[in-house]
């Protein structure tokens, strides 16, 4: 149990995907202008990442690895995740329109995204068991959600600040992210990985 907890906390704060591994930056900077959208995006990323990690684990350990096809991992994972997200979008649109209105648009955005692809690849690389893969995926998703919600809260406050013209928008957002990364850096070494 302790092992899983370490893995989870490690993925959330120590190796935070956005702030120390630089993954998912496009959506991190694109969506974090608005707090509500950030919450939706965080949820969408976490759920998609968890399910696709599970799927990818099955494909990797029962098809790719036994048949010696591991060099195809990248191609197979990309196609797998993209088609799974498309399917999920169709199902949600048909059967749960309210949910679709809430975060359907984010699903399209994350169909081909580095953070969603990175977690299954990392799982395969470190030979995690199925449960470990799932825990790692949930932790990574929670870490992403935490980072994007913190960032959105900061950027909403920033609207009342007088930012120099050339720094406005992306410039100041990057510097803010740097400050956040510095804060998260304090956690490093807390959990030996």
């Amino acid at each position: 149990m302790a092992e899983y907890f370490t893995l989870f906390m490690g993925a959330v704060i120590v190796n935070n995907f956005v702030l120390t591994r630089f993954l998912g930056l496009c959506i991190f900077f694109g969506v974090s202008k608005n707090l509500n959208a950030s919450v939706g995006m965080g949820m969408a990323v976490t759920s998609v990442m968890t399910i696709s990690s599970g799927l990818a684990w099955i494909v990797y350990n029962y098809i790719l690895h036994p048949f010696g096809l591991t060099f195809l991992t990248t191609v197979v994972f990309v196609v797998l995740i993209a088609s799974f997200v498309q399917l999920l979008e169709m199902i949600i649109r048909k059967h749960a329109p309210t949910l679709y209105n809430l975060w359907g648009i984010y699903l399209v955005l994350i169909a081909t995204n580095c953070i969603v692809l990175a977690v299954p690849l990392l799982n395969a690389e470190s030979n995690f068991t199925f449960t470990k893969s799932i825990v790692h995926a949930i932790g990574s998703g929670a870490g992403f959600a935490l980072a994007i919600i913190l960032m959105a809260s900061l950027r909403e406050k920033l609207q009342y600040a007088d930012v120099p013209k050339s720094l406005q928008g992306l410039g100041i957002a990057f510097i803010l992210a740097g400050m956040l990364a510095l804060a998260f850096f304090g956690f490093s070494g807390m959990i030996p990985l």
Partner: protein
Amino acid sequence: MKNLWEIFYKGVFAQNPIFRLALSLCPALAVTSTATNALAMGLSVMFVITSNNVVVSLFRKWVNPKVRVPVYITSIATIVTLVQLVLEAYFPILFKELSIYLALIVVFAIILARAEVFAAKNTVVPSFFDGFGMGFGFALAMVAIGIIRELFGAGTIFGIQIMGSSYDPALIMILPPGGFILIGLMIASFNLIGEYQDKAKAEKRKLAIQRGEA
């Protein structure tokens, strides 16, 4: 010929993928802690984007528009796998350092965007130059970031000692926070230059109008 040069050149400055379009930011931060890694990543992306543009434009007439995105993704993933295998065979150390970010070239927005916006609508030669220019602009930006981070963070460029031995390296530049802050400042300076250019242009126009009236 002039037209092709323009297609190439716009990717380098006016639509620089990193500083202007703010696309493909993940690798711009993740692998730029040394100039060598940044160059390797830049060249890999340049190769992938150029060859993918050529492939997409060659097959543009046979691809049904409804399934175009999966087709592009598969094509990109195949080329990336090619790059991965070559790097793993000939540059194993580099391959280890770039590790997962190499596989993630597949989902770089800039590559899919160029296939969709340019290569799907143009013939092979302009598509080649479009990909080449965008890739070149990307590689250039990567190396620029890599050089600055390595110079201040370790006192070296491409592993060669530049700063004197009395220089105390600012470790933060190699660490994640320094990367974020540096890119923020670089984007701001690009904006600042753009502002001055616009102002100079406006001033010139004003002068021309005054002269015309006088």
